[in-house]
């Protein structure tokens, strides 16, 4: 085949349209930066030591100055130092002996300020936000992949086979959509009784397949009568092969846009679930658990954890939403 006669594919055209859109390219860069950070943090290259207590209790951000952290901590230390030695302390002799052998390691010097402050335990907020973002993004991506995979599978069967199969999946769809999604998620969370990143991926994935299902089903109904599918049928391709070998590449752009929409929705849902304590287990940090801690800190005037988690999430979700809109426009030029 000649190179000149090769017409550009759907994806080439979409990429061309996307590249012409400046907002889309900036959003894409932001999303890719977040994904790179996710990769680095998951592989332990960045923020692996977020649990080290490097700063003092609620160390303020550098730009706010050490004075922003009120004197509570300093007075606490002063009070401890002023405590007179207790002559009846039964352990005094032992502790003195341990102190002489040098087994008691002197605590490392805590910093008074950190680039973006510290939480209650003196964890660096920047590292904590990166680590929290890792959890939130893994949940969002994993759950969205599961939901789109389920929706595509069900939608392909329902749309391709029609008849009784279609009726069954439509019934299943109307059952799931008549329960509001947040209620469904909470119900499943109540029943499962266990916390963990994989549990929350399962909960969100198993309840979120309805959106992709509806659109993919419609696409399969449209495509199953097309000539290329009839041709595949004529050469004896199996149903599975026609559905996923032949039709799916032609409807995969719908799945991609749905994936992108669901990632945004699931990142938001994970934050709410973790905030309520139904999400990630204790000891795992996510943006939701950070907001949960930050809620109480705000009254003490420690705003930096709230600001860090909220703005990281807002930037990622804004970029992802703008990218989704642009992706939809680029892949489906009929819309505009």
């Amino acid at each position, binding site marked *: 085949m000649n190179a000149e006669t090769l017409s550009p594919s759907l994806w080439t055209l979409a990429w061309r349209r996307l590249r012409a859109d400046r907002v889309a390219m900036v959003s894409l860069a932001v999303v890719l930066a977040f994904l790179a950070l996710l990769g680095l943090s998951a592989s332990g290259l960045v923020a692996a030591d977020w649990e080290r207590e490097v700063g003092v209790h609620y160390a303020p951000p550098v730009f706010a100055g050490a004075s922003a952290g009120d004197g509570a901590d300093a007075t606490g230390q002063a009070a401890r130092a002023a405590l007179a030695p207790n002559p009846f302390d039964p352990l005094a002799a032992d502790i003195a002996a341990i102190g002489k052998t040098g087994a008691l390691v002197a605590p490392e010097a805590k910093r008074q300020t950190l680039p973006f402050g510290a939480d209650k335990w003196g964890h660096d907020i920047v590292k904590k936000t990166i680590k929290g973002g890792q959890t939130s993004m893994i949940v969002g991506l994993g759950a969205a992949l599961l939901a789109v995979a389920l929706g595509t599978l069900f939608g392909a069967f329902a749309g391709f086979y029609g008849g009784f199969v279609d009726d069954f999946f439509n*019934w*299943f769809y*109307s*059952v*799931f959509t*008549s*329960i*509001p*999604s*947040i*209620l*469904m998620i*909470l*119900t*499943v*969370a*109540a*029943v*499962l*009784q266990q916390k963990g990143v994989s549990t929350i991926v399962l909960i969100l994935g198993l309840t979120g397949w309805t959106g992709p299902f509806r659109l993919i089903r419609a696409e399969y109904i449209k495509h199953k009568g097309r000539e290329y599918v009839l041709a595949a049928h004529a050469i004896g391709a199996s149903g599975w092969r026609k559905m996923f070998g032949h039709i799916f590449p032609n409807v995969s752009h719908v799945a991609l846009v749905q994936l992108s929409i669901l990632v945004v929705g699931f990142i*938001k849902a994970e*934050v*709410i679930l973790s*905030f*309520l*304590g*139904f999400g990630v287990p204790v000891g795992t940090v996510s*943006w*939701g658990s950070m*907001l949960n801690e*930050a*809620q109480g800190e*705000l*009254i003490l005037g420690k705003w930096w954890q*709230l600001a860090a988690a*909220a703005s990281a*999430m*807002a*930037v*990622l*979700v*804004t970029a992802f*939403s*703008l990218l989704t*809109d642009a992706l939809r426009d680029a892949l489906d030029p009929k819309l505009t």
Partner: protein
Amino acid sequence: MTAFFLRRLWQTVPTMAGVVLLVFLLFNWVGGDPAYILAGKMSDAQAIASIRTQLGVDQPYPAQLWKFVQQIVTFDFGNSWATGEPVGAIITSRLGPSLTVLVPLTILETAIGIALALGLAFVRGSVLDRGVMVACTVGMSISILVYIIAFQYGLAYKLGWFPIQGWGDSLGQNLLRYAPLPILIGLCVSIAPTLRLFRSFVLDEASQDYVRTARAKGLTERRIVWVHVLRNAAIPIITYVMANLPALLIGAFLLERFFGIPGIGREVILAVERSDFPVIKAITVYVAAATMLFNLLADLLYQAVDPRVQLA
């Protein structure tokens, strides 16, 4: 009309049966044995056996399913596992506070959404229009948690314009004193997605032939948008608002939790925290039934709005 209503009602039967079956499978099969949750840490075999008999979970599955169906039809889900109150009483007493927040919120949200969407239709494609759309996207990206935390801290705690939280006994006091801040936050959160959606409905209509005809016969732009376009855009707007009403009942759970409003949403959260299965089961089934009912009502409203729609 009556025939249509009855047929639609009949069509919801399989869906409702599916919801009942799904909830039953989740709680009685996936969820494992509730006796262990109830017996707690100090459990012995005898205590567990007696709880199982009491709950009826030692019966075969078909018998349990039949009991569940009876509970739904008679509105009698027994008592809450956590507080011992009858579940029916819990739901009816939580409905009032939820509605006190939700009814004004829905009315304001819809009215403001429609007004802004039609207003933007005048200036579509302009810098203002695009600016508002970008602002909506950014506004939607901020977690509802952040809105609640920031508003509660700023407006209630720092400035003292509103009570930080609480709920009274009289409707007037609740509506004027405790509900305004939750309603304001609810509006801030929901206006962005609502406006985006309503704007797309309005723009769909704005390019129709009848709009051109109306312009050609010399109607003012204001009359075209507020009378002709609004009437036609009302159909998808009604569907959206009606279909979302039952979901809103649950969706306000964060507002209810933060502001100590004893509504349905907060009850769901409490029930999930305490593994109070009867309450969750009852709320899930009734909210699903309400969703179907409201969808049906939306269909009936279409005809009132659009005489072209024939419900046969």
